[in-house]
């Protein structure tokens, strides 16, 4: 883990700090601690500048982008079906006809790999989106309402957190009936407490900042204060958490598929594909498991690299001086 300081230096040297346009009439000396920073929304051009100067984000986004494009356009360009079986062609090694070989039923691994990327990305994104939405809303309500609502909600969250997330997700999935949809539901439920607890504590922190009292002093109603002053300040924290949970969700979905409670066998889901190919790795047909495994690794590494930088760029604590 690179320290915050190192990273800051690295970024400063690579020139990622946007030079704030020097406006006329700003002779006042600027407070050093509140120097302009990346992502405070000053200029509309910062995302592009960020991409140009931040190699980590650029790399992560290119990998993710490539996988997304592959998942979207792949099925139309690579005409093999991911599920059609050609028993005559079973267990073929990678070749020009089948770049990633075929499995025991003669299904084209490359077609399955392409479809699997789409499944992993979309299912992972869904899990993160729904989880962040529900968990964030729960945390917001608990933090604003306080009292009995807060206590009940947080005790339920504590109860959910008492189980390891993956075990809980597994139990819920089995309870709902195995399949990729129940796996997503299980993961959403097991990740909700992360968002809820985090957002609740952020709401409590933000609620006692002076500008909240100032908003009350000008006559803002509680709903408006929540909407206009609390939510914008907890959003970066939620995004950072969601970005971090994206990689986790993909791995967890694959893990559920791998142990057989997630996506079921003909579905070209990477986790299930790895399981499918496992026996053949001993007999030399490595491509069945290794190709989806590499895809999974690439996707998760990219997701985590991005999440790592999202934390610094959004910098929930540094967006304003305290």
């Amino acid at each position: 883990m690179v320290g915050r300081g190192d990273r800051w230096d690295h970024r400063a040297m690579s020139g990622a700090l946007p030079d704030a346009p020097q406006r006329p009439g700003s002779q006042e000396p600027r407070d050093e601690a509140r120097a302009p920073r990346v992502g405070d929304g000053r200029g509309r051009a910062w995302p592009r500048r960020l991409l140009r100067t931040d190699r980590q984000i650029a790399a992560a986004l290119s990998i993710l982008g490539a996988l997304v494009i592959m998942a979207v356009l792949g099925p139309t360009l690579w005409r093999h079906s991911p599920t059609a079986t050609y028993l005559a062609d079973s267990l073929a090694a990678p070749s020009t006809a089948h770049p990633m070989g075929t499995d025991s039923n003669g299904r084209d691994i490359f077609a399955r790999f392409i479809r699997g990327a789409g499944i992993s990305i979309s299912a992972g994104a869904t899990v993160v989106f729904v989880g962040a939405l529900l968990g964030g809303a729960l945390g917001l309500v608990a933090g604003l309402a306080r009292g009995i609502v807060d206590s009940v909600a947080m005790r339920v969250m504590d109860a959910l957190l008492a189980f390891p997330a993956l075990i809980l997700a597994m139990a819920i999935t089995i309870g709902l009936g195995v399949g990729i949809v129940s796996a997503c539901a299980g993961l959403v439920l097991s990740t909700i407490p992360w968002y809820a607890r985090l957002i609740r504590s952020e709401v409590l922190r933000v609620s006692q900042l002076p500008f909240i009292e100032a908003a009350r002093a000008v006559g803002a109603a509680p709903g408006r204060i929540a909407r206009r002053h609390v939510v914008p300040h907890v959003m970066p924290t939620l995004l950072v958490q969601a970005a971090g949970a994206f990689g986790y969700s993909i791995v967890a979905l694959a893990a559920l598929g791998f142990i057989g409670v997630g996506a079921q066998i003909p579905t070209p889901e990477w986790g299930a594909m790895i399981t499918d190919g496992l026996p053949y790795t001993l007999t030399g047909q490595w491509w069945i498991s290794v190709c989806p495994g590499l895809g999974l690794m690439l996707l998760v590494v990219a997701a985590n690299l991005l999440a790592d930088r999202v934390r610094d760029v959004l910098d929930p604590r540094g967006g304003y001086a305290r």
Partner: protein
Amino acid sequence: MSGALLSVEHLTKEFHTNASFGRRAEVVRALDDVSFEVRRGETFGLVGESGSGKSTLARCVLRLIEPTAGRITFDGIDLRALDAKRMRRLRRRLQFVFQDASGALDPRMNVGELLAEPLEIHGVGDRNERRRRGRETLELVGLTNEMMDRRPHEFSGGQRQRVGIARALVLRPEVVVLDEPISALDVSVQAQVLNLLRDLQRELGLTYVFIGHDLAVAEYFCDRVAVLYLGHQVESASREQLFSRPLHPYTVGLFEAAPVPDPSRRSRQRRTIVRDDADMPSPLTGCPLQPRCPVGRHRKLCATTRPPLEEHEPRHVAACHFPGALIDEHAAA
């Protein structure tokens, strides 16, 4: 009651600590029976050392925190009887300037948004009208148009406080409570902001409640001044009366503890009221100042009976059994 725009009667605020394992809930009385009246167009000062309850009082008056007991009347309206919605609507006429402007301005909003928000809340004008009023008020506090698109962190402390003042004034209120508006500022800017506030008062016909700890500032800025000690109002009078002949020993102590920018007067022995211990319990029955008071320290009356707030000279009230005793003694020495 005659002519009072804002009157505060018997205001009391208690804070309760929660009981936890083996500890009983405690009650801290931050304000004890404070009463004063503010007339239209004047500046009423509240001074006291830190912990005297000044800021609590300021917030209670505008119901930013709910007082425990007492009555607050603004223009004939009993503020504490209003429900939340009516109170919010009335805030248009009662505004607050915070000590810490950098904290009181939402860092994610630019000045234009900060100034438009109060108008938006009270349904004033459309978007363009609100922007126009914001710009107008910004000019009123001595800032320029082009600052509308900047965020609070791009300003210096003095400018930020001007934005805070503009935000309070954009609704054209009648009463503005100033909670130590210059204490967080550089000494060089303090006078500027103070003069600005004074000009604005004249221009807009504002009534100020000024909270401060600096006596020199209070003397310069306020028409009438009340002195708070540990949540008790110990003295209140017009500026002339209070600064020429303070009746309460605590006020005398405050004056004598203030630094004097004149070396020839410094040689005189400083008779300060020493605060031995910040947690010194204020006696439950006697005068709250009694343990620290040069006059009452050894007097039985002071230790047993709480002095009532009484008018000892015309419109000059003090809560002391021996009003003027200390200042006369010092004058004789």
